Every structure is written in structure tokens, then in C-alpha cells.
């Protein structure tokens, strides 16, 4: 009964989404205030019914209702309750319902804050969000209904994919989805601006938090996914350039570019059509990500759902939403004219460089991801593009971007006197270069050109990001920083930490794959490992062999590690559960591989210096984003006149401007 109730709620949500898609847009076109007024109540109602449907599905999971097909396929009585709830989004159908629910929440937030905006504008925004929502709800109901019943209910369910039975995996998809779906909001703002045929600085100010918000979730979601792959896939790597990972990374790159170009659009009224294009591209890429991962077009290490019929529907939806927006762009973008110009040495130039380089990086990733598909479609056979391509193609734009970032943070709008920049950045540059060359050589004994380059750039960013905050904290240097400026420095500090972690862990990790028998000892990365032995372990829904390893440094016991090789009883798939001893300065990673006969096991040992900085850097970036979103000027609407005049004060008077 409850599942039917959920199904019914989903149908009602679709009806309201259609109303929200059609009437406000038509009303805005014809100047009918009554039709436009329907947008907000329709959005609220849609939220209520989506949430009801979601709750109904969660209830079916928690009560083990295996007469519902989706529950029977993705749950099991032995599954811990925590994972039963997470299983709601652990499969294709449920994750779509989750997608719609998240969109309904974002839409509600837009409707709530949009009351301060002109009715025509907010109606268009909500109308576009209604189109997206209606498309996805229709897709869910027609091809992937999570409430479908089975004629005969099985006694027990098929269990959740063991790969997903992990705390990070409980959080990773929701984070990513909130980010993906949230990018629909700037998309809707962009389409609304195109429909109106004008783009004001107010528009940019309204849009900015709706880019930074989803960006924060995307950042955290990608970091969680990388962390999960690091310890759950059992390979010790943290990024694989896998199509599913790329699908989340491309929208992140474009959203990052969009945040920066919006800063220029808000402050200077420049880059207007470019900003619109990025907003369309960011959401289109997150939709494309859904297509790539849900259609089976690309095979991946963690492809969870694959079905051509569904792929065709998503492709049609993509063509309608992205194709439609881009066609509108082709027709209307020429109306959006710039308000002024800028000099070479100005914040605008640096943000332009940022945009170009980030777009190149995103295009390179996109190309590498779908290149195999192109070749196959043209009849050249099947190939796969591997990490060497991505690493090279990604580093080429990223290195100059990272180097320019340190200067860009301190450049002022319009024009920056060269000597001011030089005075400020001379010592940080010298420090970063010296430390980058000397420190790795002292600590690790070896170094290479690329490693030095990476460390120098990372330190350069860290130091330049800290200059202003430190000056303010010790009470020197003029006006206090706004919260948005704090956010900018903190987020860039995160970028520096991330690059430092990525460089050091790639250059200096110690790897050893070893065929070990109990009692054996060996050394890797300055640690001595002793294989004590294995024993059998029974989990709630799996059986495992657990290895025991003693880890010593200079003869002293550091830790005892217990990696497992699990076999989940229902799906019978073997899973590697690596043991990780994490510390700020290094991770020790031990995974139990294949049994080699007798007592011997293949054992994979990694010692990874500074790998924690990868996740720490991402968290710091996200925190910087949070500071930016909560800046005062996004709450006071419309902006007081005084503040806007202040923003136009020439550069020399305000050497540090928020972005």
C-alpha cells in the first residue's frame, strides 16, 4: 500500500512539474501575472510530493518489503539498517528519485529567495527548473519506476552491491547529486537571462551563490569518491581517470570557471555571453555525466547501471534541455554587450586566463572520455584512453593556471601598478622556489624536474594565499577582509595543499607487491612489515579472510593492520577491504590480494607521504566556498547603493579586492 502511495505521489509531482514548466514561462512571455504567480506554489507542492515518494521508498527498504522489485534487487534482511536507508540511492531507480527530490529542494530554495527578484525573472527561472524536473520525473516513471511490484515476492533480497556497503559510499552519491542537480539553478538563471535578452550586474550577484553552493557539494563529493576508491577498490590509487570519475570532474572544472567568470560579470559587467555559456555547459556536463554512467555507452570500473533504452531517453532529454538552451544562446547571446574594458595587468586578465585554462582542461578530459566512443562509432575499433593521456593533457593547462593563481589573487580590478605586485610577491616567489628545490631533496633524497615544479607551485599558492589573512590577523594592512575575500584566500589555500599532496604522494610513494607467507618480513618506504597470518572472520552479510600484519619503524611497533578479503554471501562477489593507517604526514596501506596456494598470499603494500593533504585540500577548498556563499552581500537584496559605488573605486586604493 505504501509503495503505491509513493508511486501516486510521484505522478502528482510530475503533474505539478508540468504546471511549473508551462504556466510561469507562458505568463512571463505574455505578461500574465496570475500565471506567473503559480510558479511558487507549484514548486512547493512538487517538493512535498517528491519528499513523500522518497519517504515511501525509504519505508519500503527499512521494512524489507521485497515485493517491491527495486527493494528486492538492492536490499537484504541481513543488511544493516544504515545501509538499507543508503540503498535507496544505491541503484538506478532510487538514485533517480533522489535526483528529483534534490532538484525539488533546490527549486524550493530558489522560489523562497526569488521573492526579492522581479516576478518575471523568478517565474522564468522556476519555469526552466520545472522543465528539467518534469523531464527527469517522466524518465523515472516511464523507464525506471522504483515502486514496481514483483508478482511473487522473494523470501529475501539480492543485497546491496558490496562495493557500496561502505560509509563513504553512503555519503558520496548524495553529495555528488546535490552538486550535479544544483547546477540546474545557474542553468535556469542563464536561460532566464537569455529569454529576457538582458544580463545585469544584479543577475550576476543573484547567480553567484547558486554556483558556489553546488560547487561546494561537488568538491566534497568528488573528494569522498576519490577517498572511497582509494581504500575500497584496493588498488591504492586515488584517481583513475575512469569515465564515471571524469563525469563528475568535468562539471566541477566548468563550475569552477563559472564562479570566476561570474566574479567579473558582477564587478565589471564583462564576459557576459561567456558566463551564460559556462552556466549552460556546467549543467549540460552534469547531465551528460548521468547519460554516460546510466547508458552503458562507456564501460568503467564502477559502472552500476547500463541499459540502452534508458540511455536513449536521457539523450533525448539532454538534446531538449542543453540543445534547446544552446539554440537560444545562438539566437540571443549577441544582445548581451559588455560594459567596459580592462588592462593587461588586472584581475580581469587573470580571471580570463583562469577561464581559458580551466575550459581547456575540461575539454581535454571530455575528449579523452568520449574519444574511444568516437573511434568505435567511426569503425576504427575499440581502444581505451589511459591515465598517461589524461595526466599529460591535464597538467599542461593546470601548471600555468596554478602559477598565475598566486598573482591573480593580488591583482586589482581594471589595472594594477606593476611595482605593487612585485613588492608584494617577490619574497613569496623566492621562498617557494628555494623551499621547493631544497626540502624534497633533504627529506626524500631524490627529486625530479616535475616534482620540483609541483612543489614550488604548491608552496607559491599556499604562501600567496596566506599573505593577506596573516597581515590582517597580526593587525596590519588597512581595511578588514570581507567574508568573500576570506573565502577566496581559504579556497586557494586548499588548492595549494591539494597540489602539494598530489605531487608528493605521486613522486614519493613506496609500492611493493609481495607474495608473502606467514612469519615473513620485508621492508617498504622505511617501514618493516611482518605477515603474522590469516584467519576466517564472519561479518553480518559476508565471510572474510583477515590477514594480520605488524608494522614497525626502526624496530618499534607502529600499528597492527588487518586487511580483509571479503565474499558477500548473497551476491558472492569478492571484495578487497584494505587496511589503512592514516596520519597527516603519511598513510600506510596494506591490502590482501589473491590467495597463492598454501599459506601464501599476494600482498599489496603502499606507503604514501602527504596523501591526507588531498582530502584536506578539498575540504579547505569547500570551506572557502562556504565562506564565500555566506558573504553579507548575497543576503542584503538589493545591494545598497553605497556598496556598489565602493566596488568601483580604482584599484590602487584597494589592493585586495574580493572575487
Amino acid at each position, binding site marked *: 500500500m505504501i509503495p503505491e502511495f509513493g508511486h501516486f505521489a510521484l505522478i502528482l509531482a510530475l503533474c505539478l512539474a508540468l504546471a511549473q514548466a508551462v504556466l510561469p514561462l507562458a505568463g512571463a512571455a505574455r505578461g500574465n501575472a496570475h500565471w506567473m504567480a503559480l510558479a511558487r506554489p507549484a514548486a512547493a507542492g512538487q517538493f512535498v510530493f517528491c519528499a513523500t515518494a522518497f519517504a515511501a521508498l525509504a519505508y519500503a527498504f527499512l521494512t524489507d518489503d521485497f515485493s517491491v522489485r527495486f527493494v528486492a534487487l538492492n536490499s537484504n534482511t541481513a543488511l544493516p539498517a544504515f545501509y538499507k536507508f543508503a540503498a535507496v540511492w544505491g541503484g538506478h531507480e532510487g538514485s533517480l528519485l533522489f535526483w528529483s527530490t534534490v532538484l525539488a529542494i533546490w527549486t524550493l530554495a530558489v522560489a523562497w529567495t526569488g521573492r526579492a527578484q522581479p516576478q518575471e525573472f523568478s517565474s522564468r527561472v522556476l519555469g526552466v527548473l520545472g522543465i528539467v524536473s518534469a523531464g527527469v520525473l517522466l524518465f523515472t516513471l516511464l523507464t525506471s519506476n522504483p515502486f514496481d511490484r514483483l508478482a511473487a515476492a522473494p523470501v529475501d533480497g539480492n543485497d546491496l552491491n558490496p562495493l557500496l556497503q561502505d560509509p563513504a559510499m553512503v555519503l558520496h552519491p548524495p553529495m555528488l547529486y546535490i552538486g550535479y542537480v544544483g547546477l540546474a539553478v545557474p542553468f535556469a538563471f542563464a536561460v532566464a537571462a537569455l529569454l529576457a535578452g538582458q544580463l545585469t550586474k544584479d543577475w550576476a550577484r543573484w547567480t553567484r551563490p547558486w554556483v558556489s553552493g553546488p560547487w561546494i557539494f561537488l568538491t566534497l563529493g568528488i573528494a569522498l569518491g576519490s577517498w572511497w576508491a582509494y581504500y575500497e577498490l584496493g588498488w591504492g590509487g586515488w584517481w583513475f581517470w575512469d569515465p564515471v570519475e571524469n563525469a563528475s570532474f568535468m562539471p566541477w572544472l566548468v563550475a569552477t570557471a563559472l564562479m570566476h567568470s561570474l566574479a567579473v560579470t558582477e564587478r565589471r559587467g564583462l564576459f557576459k*555571453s561567456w558566463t551564460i*555559456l559556462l552556466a*549552460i*555547459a556546467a549543467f*549540460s556536463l552534469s547531465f551528460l555525466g548521468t*547519460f554516460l554512467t546510466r*547508458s*552503458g*555507452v*562507456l*564501460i568503467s570500473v564502477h559502472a552500476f547501471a*547500463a541499459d*540502452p533504452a534508458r*540511455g*536513449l531517453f536521457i*539523450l533525448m532529454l*539532454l*538534446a531538449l534541455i*542543453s*540543445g534547446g538552451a*544552446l*539554440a537560444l*544562446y*545562438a*539566437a540571443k*547571446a*549577441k544582445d548581451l554587450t559588455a560594459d567596459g574594458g580592462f588592462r593587461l595587468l588586472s584581475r580581469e586578465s587573470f580571471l580570463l586566463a583562469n577561464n581559458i585554462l580551466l575550459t581547456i582542461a575540461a575539454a581535454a578530459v571530455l575528449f579523452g572520455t*568520449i574519444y*574511444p*566512443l*568516437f573511434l*568505435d*562509432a567511426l569503425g576504427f575499433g*575499440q581502444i*581505451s584512453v589511459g591515465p598517461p593521456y589524461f595526466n599529460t593533457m591535464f597538467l599542461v593547462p593546470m601548471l600555468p593556471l596554478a602559477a598565475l593563481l598566486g598573482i591573480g589573487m593580488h591583482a586589482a580590478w581594471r589595472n594594477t601598478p606593476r611595482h605593487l605586485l612585485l613588492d608584494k610577491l617577490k619574497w613569496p616567489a623566492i621562498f617557494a622556489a628555494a623551499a621547493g628545490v631544497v626540502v624534497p631533496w633533504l627529506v626524500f633524497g631524490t627529486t625530479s624536474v616535475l616534482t620540483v615544479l609541483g612543489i614550488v607551485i604548491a608552496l607559491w599558492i599556499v604562501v600567496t594565499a596566506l599573505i593577506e589573512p596573516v597581515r590582517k590577523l597580526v593587525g596590519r594592512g588597512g581595511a578588514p577582509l570581507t567574508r568573500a575575500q576570506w573565502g577566496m584566500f581559504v579556497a586557494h589555500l586548499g588548492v595549494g595543499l591539494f597540489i602539494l599532496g598530489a605531487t608528493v604522494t605521486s613522486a614519493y610513494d613506496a609500492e611493493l607487491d609481495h607474495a608473502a607467507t606467514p612469519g615473513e618480513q620485508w621492508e617498504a618506504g622505511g617501514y618493516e612489515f611482518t605477515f603474522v597470518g590469516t584467519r*576466517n572472520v564472519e561479518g553480518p552479510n559476508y*565471510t*572474510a*579472510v583477515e590477514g594480520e600484519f605488524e608494522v614497525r619503524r626502526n624496530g618499534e611497533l607502529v600499528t597492527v593492520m588487518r586487511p580483509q*578479503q571479503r*565474499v558477500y*554471501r548473497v*551476491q*558472492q*562477489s*569478492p571484495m578487497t577491504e584494505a587496511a589503512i593507517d592514516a596520519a597527516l604526514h603519511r598513510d600506510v596501506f596494506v591490502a590482501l590480494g*589473491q*590467495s*597463492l*596456494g*598454501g*599459506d601464501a598470499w599476494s600482498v599489496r603494500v603502499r606507503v604514501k607521504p602527504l596523501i591526507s593533504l588531498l582530502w584536506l585540500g578539498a575540504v579547505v577548498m569547500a570551506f572557502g566556498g562556504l565562506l564565500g556563499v555566506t558573504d553579507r552581500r548575497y543576503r542584503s537584496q538589493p545591494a545598497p547603493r553605497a556598496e556598489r559605488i565602493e566596488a568601483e573605486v580604482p584599484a590602487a586604493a584597494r589592493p585586495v579586492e574580493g572575487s
Partner: protein
Amino acid sequence: MWRYVIPVAVFAVLAVFLYRGLYLNPGYIPSPLVGKPAPEFSLPDLENLDRQVGSRDYEGQVALLNVWATWCVGCRQEHPFLVELARSSGVPIYGLNWKDDRDKALEWLDTLGDPYVASAFDVEGDVAIDWGVYGAPETFLIGRDGTILHKHIAPLTPEIWRRDFLPKIAEECGSLPCPLAEGEE
């Protein structure tokens, strides 16, 4: 202003390729041994060391060779399914008992059931090296002419059996259960 049309044009090209991609067969990389003649071997029978078991036993038949051992968790997991297969599939299953303790192996077959026509006792693991085994369990599907039709690593499940094995067996035999080749029996 043609430059504003470029994005939608690029998108259109991309969409066409994505559409084509929907109907292409996703690629997979086969094991190097698949399609090659299976290595010949002859080893003592696990249950009667005086008798020999080897590739000659299944010559001219479609057969499975399952690499197993008592120390392997995955083997315990797939065992009930192998017993069921032996009863219902009509495909003979040969075992390759790999680097195992004979007493434990015999006890295993006693308690869990014996799906194998015979199990070869490969205590040194030499035959497993010839077959490119790098972990247990592994299951090979061998065709009537002695070529390896398919290799599966990790426990065999009904789903994998239906998806990967049955189509190849049907192709090899024309119908199920697989008839024995001429000259046999």
C-alpha cells in the same frame, strides 16, 4: 554573429556520436588464453592417486575445468552452485585441486558434495602455471576441439553462468544439453 552558433553545432555533433554509441557493443579485453588450444595435462586423481586424470578425459566434449582448493573462500562460496550445475547442466565439470592438502580436500568433497567427474591433484601447481591460473577460483570452458572458449575469474554465480557461459555453450553445441562428440561412448 556566427560564433554564437558554434556551441550548439558542437553539441549536435556530440549528440549524434552519443546516439551511435548507444548501439555499439561495449568492449572488453579477453584473456590471452581464450581461443587458444587448452594446455594438455595428466595428473593423479585426487580420490585415487593410482589413476590419472587429464585433458584426454574430456577430449571431444564441452567441459568445464574448475580450479579449486580448500583454503579458498571464493571456492566455498561457489561450491553449492557447482553441485547444482553438475546435476542439471549436462556439462561435465572437471576439478583442478590446486596446491591443497589431500585429506582436507577429500573431507571437503565428502561434506559439501562432489560436483566433479574427477579432480586432478595438482599439489605442486605446475599445471595451474600452464593454464595461466593466478588465483582460485577460476573456471575454464573448453570446447569440443579442445580450445578454451571462456575463462572466468572469481566465484561462479547463476547470473554469470547465464550471461557468459550458456551463450557460448549453445553456440558450440547448437542445443542443450550438449551431445557428446562422435566416437565417444
